[in-house]
């Protein structure tokens, strides 16, 4: 069980926000912090890691207290058993892939273990390359492995897939899922990608302006609003074309372009680039006398 309570005054671009959260993560769970940028997600991860100090806080991991501002307990990051995957991966450019992992292992060099790990992550052919020569996906994989080799009590992932393209992201989602299954490390992911959250997490904490606004399983948190039987999508208008008495709209939704018909009334105040909601009021039940 991981208990986290933190309070900290944050200075954001849009002013001061009071970050105050109380989180409990069951052991071996996969939990996601979800929210818009500026909600304080990354700050929470850094406070758990000991890289940022809260104004007030209490962190206990599996019975061991890492931080208690009242009792003046504050373990440095080095003493907290954490694996942290940074948004920019933070691989050391001066070290090869193997050396990066060796640095994490902190021992002289357990070559057997290193070889096993590299093989398991299918990275052995890249072991002697320096990180800047690797692709984004490969760097991500090395960063993940480097965070896990010390067998941390908690794995912290700060938007690890945000810089990758869709295909790579899906491959790595599967990989993160499998790694979590085999290592069984309690994991806290920061993300604002719904597909990622759905595929990976057992539990979601939704943050807004430093406060928890909802928590529960993905279905519970997003169920009410987003899983409606009606179709409701957010898209961007690409083109408005006149066609007789109606207009044809090209709307970008995700990676698809949808064509739809609109009346002159509907396209009033609408210009290419606008965000729109596309919804269908279909599926009405039919009623018939028997």
């Amino acid at each position, binding site marked *: 069980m991981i208990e986290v309570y933190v309070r900290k005054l944050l200075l954001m671009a849009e002013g001061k926000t009071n970050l105050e959260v109380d989180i409990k993560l069951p052991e071996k769970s996969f939990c996601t912090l979800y929210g818009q940028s500026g909600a304080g997600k990354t700050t929470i991860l850094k406070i758990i890691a000991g*890289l940022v100090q809260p104004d007030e806080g209490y962190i206990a991991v599996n019975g061991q207290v890492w931080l208690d501002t009242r009792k003046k307990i504050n373990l*440095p990051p*080095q003493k907290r058993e*954490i694996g942290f995957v940074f948004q920019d991966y*933070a691989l050391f*450019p001066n070290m090869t892939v193997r050396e990066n992992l060796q640095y994490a292992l*902190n021992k002289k060099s357990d070559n057997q273990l290193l070889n096993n790990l590299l093989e398991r992550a299918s990275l052995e052919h890249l072991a002697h390359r320096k990180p800047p020569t690797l692709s984004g996906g490969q760097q991500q994989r090395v960063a993940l492995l480097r965070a896990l080799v*010390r067998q941390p009590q908690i794995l912290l992932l700060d938007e690890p897939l945000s810089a990758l393209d869709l295909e790579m992201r899906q491959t790595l989602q599967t990989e993160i899922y499998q790694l979590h299954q085999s290592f069984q490390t309690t994991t806290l992911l920061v993300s604002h990608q719904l597909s990622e959250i759905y595929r990976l997490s057992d539990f979601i904490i939704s943050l807004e302006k430093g406060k928890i606004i909802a928590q529960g399983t993905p279905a519970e948190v997003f169920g009410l609003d987003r899983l409606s039987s009606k179709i409701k999508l957010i898209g961007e208008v690409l083109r408005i074309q006149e066609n007789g008495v109606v207009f044809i709209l090209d709307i970008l939704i995700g990676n698809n372009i949808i064509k739809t018909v609109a009346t002159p009334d509907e396209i009033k105040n609408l210009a290419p680039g606008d965000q729109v909601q596309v919804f269908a009021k279909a599926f009405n039940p039919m009623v018939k006398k028997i």
Partner: protein
Amino acid sequence: MGIDWQPLWLTLQLAGITTILLLLIGLPLALWLTRTTSYFKPVAEAIISLPIVLPPSVLGFYLLLAFSPGSALGRFLNNVWGLQLVFSFPGLVVGSIIYSLPFMVQPLQAGLAALPHSLREASYTLGHSKMQTLLRVLLPNMKPALLTGLVLSFAHTIGEFGLVLMIGGNIPGETRVVSIAIYHEVESLNFAAAHIYSSILLLLAFGILLLVYLVNKRLAKTF
């Protein structure tokens, strides 16, 4: 014709010792400057950069006053450590350290600031101390800045004149460095010797700078 090699040797010794000591002093200073949010930071930066704009004679004049046995500091140094900093080689080293400080601190500070915070943080989360992080992660990833700081400090110390003249004077084997020797030879109308010293300095300075640019170009490629 006989030329006295001692000033050249003395100059290299002075520059070498100064550079090594400057690295040891400049690195903690640069680390502090990149991390601190203290209100005192601009003041510290201004003081460190003073030697760039101040005439060396001004610096030399005040150091001469401070180090002289008549002043409190001079008396203290003399009584406690038996250090006589006026008209002596140790005095030149102290003066040169102050004089070349910005040439070490500024490149190091820029190099440290250019490294992503996450590198340092990642090293901490992997269980490594601040010292290990500095030696194994930060410094190896800022080699061009390190090289620039070392070479600029070394070259700048070789080229100093006004400050050395003020606090060191012109004592053969003790404080007569090449730049002073050139001045001395010209004053005694011994132009041939002045030529030799000057051309050696010119070539040395050009060679050092060329080396820096060549090495930095190669370092830039490997990353």
